């Protein structure tokens, strides 16, 4: 039986790593519901396995983004102050929260992610750095290979971005997902950070946040190595395959399929949470 669970966890993690990589997500938002609904694992075990996978995939992609010069290290470390605090709060709250409520929260987040998936990110325009960002020298620049130009940017609305980073941390610690879905739009739309730099900086931050949360999951003994080890390996494999096939995939079709999948998983998650609550 452990072998079967390990193999199925590996397959699901490859799938979520692949989809996560194709869609620019950590993959946890797909993996947790799949582990709960298909393998009937408790949500705490699924979240613990997922958070380790999130550390692995974000660490692997950050090493590439760092070499490309896309990651804004100063901004990432500064925002990480509030995100890590959020992750610790979330991971501590999760121990006190019941399984039904966690399932319902995850269901709502899945549907929210599906709805926002199709929302077009506004046309980026350079922002001037605000007072706090100027003092901390959070502005950055990188060479955009696709456009062949050097892109320089400032960081605006720093306090609001910091607050949203805390919220992303709470959700990450609570449910074992990366929280990139909140951080990237916050940096891009509010902070005026170009999307490529926002994705790369968010990836760097996700690794640190998830590491903080996974320490707590490990200490609270939610980590089942038979599930977590294949999930980490599968997520790494899936993300690596995904990054190779991304240029050949038609984005719109994939986004539509993914939106439908997220809505189905979200509704199933809410239904199972309510059902579990009624049975108690």
């Amino acid at each position, binding site marked *: 039986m452990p072998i079967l669970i390990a193999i199925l966890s590996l397959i699901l993690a490859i799938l979520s790593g692949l989809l996560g990589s194709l869609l620019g997500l950590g993959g946890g938002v797909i993996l947790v519901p799949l582990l709960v609904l298909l393998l009937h694992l408790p949500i705490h075990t699924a979240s613990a396995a997922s958070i380790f996978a999130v550390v692995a995939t974000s660490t692997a992609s950050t090493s590439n983004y760092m070499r490309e010069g896309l990651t804004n290290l100063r901004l990432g*470390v500064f925002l990480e102050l509030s995100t890590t605090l959020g992750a*610790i709060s979330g991971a501590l709250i999760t121990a006190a929260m019941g399984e039904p409520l966690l399932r319902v929260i995850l269901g709502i987040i899945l549907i929210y992610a599906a709805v926002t998936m199709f929302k077009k990110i506004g046309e980026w325009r350079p922002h001037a750095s605000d007072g706090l960002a100027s003092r901390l*020298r959070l502005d950055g620049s990188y060479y955009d290979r696709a456009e062949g130009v050097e892109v320089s940017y400032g960081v605006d609305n720093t306090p609001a971005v910091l607050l949203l980073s805390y919220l992303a941390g709470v959700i990450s610690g609570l449910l074992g997902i990366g929280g990139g879905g909140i951080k990237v739009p916050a940096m891009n739309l509010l902070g005026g950070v170009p999307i490529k730099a926002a994705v790369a900086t968010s990836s760097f931050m996700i690794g*640190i946040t998830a590491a903080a949360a996974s320490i707590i999951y490990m200490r609270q003994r939610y980590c089942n*190595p038979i599930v977590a080890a294949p999930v980490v390996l599968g997520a790494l494999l899936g993300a690596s395959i995904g990054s190779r096939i991304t240029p050949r995939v038609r984005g719109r079709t994939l986004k539509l399929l993914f939106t439908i999948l997220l809505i189905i998983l979200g509704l199933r998650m809410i239904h199972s949470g309510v059902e579990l609550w009624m049975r108690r």
Partner: protein
Amino acid sequence: MDATLREVISLIMRLGVYSSALLLSLGISIRLTTPWIAGEHLMRLGFITLISTPIAAVASSAILSAIHGDRRLTLTSTLVLLILLLGVALGAI
């Protein structure tokens, strides 16, 4: 300084991911095919290596920025490390 720091962090990240993947693969193979306890220990080591990697990246940011006299980055990196330590302490309760 930023370019050197990025190179160092990139190297730490690659080493961490590859070594943890190796430890986890070995550990799960031993755990599922033999009765040896070594599999459990290797997997635990793999998880610890994985978790330590991003933390080591922040630590290297704190150390390198301190060497280069960048007080702001040293301060923020050190604060992040302290919050991570707080997480470990709270998780122990």
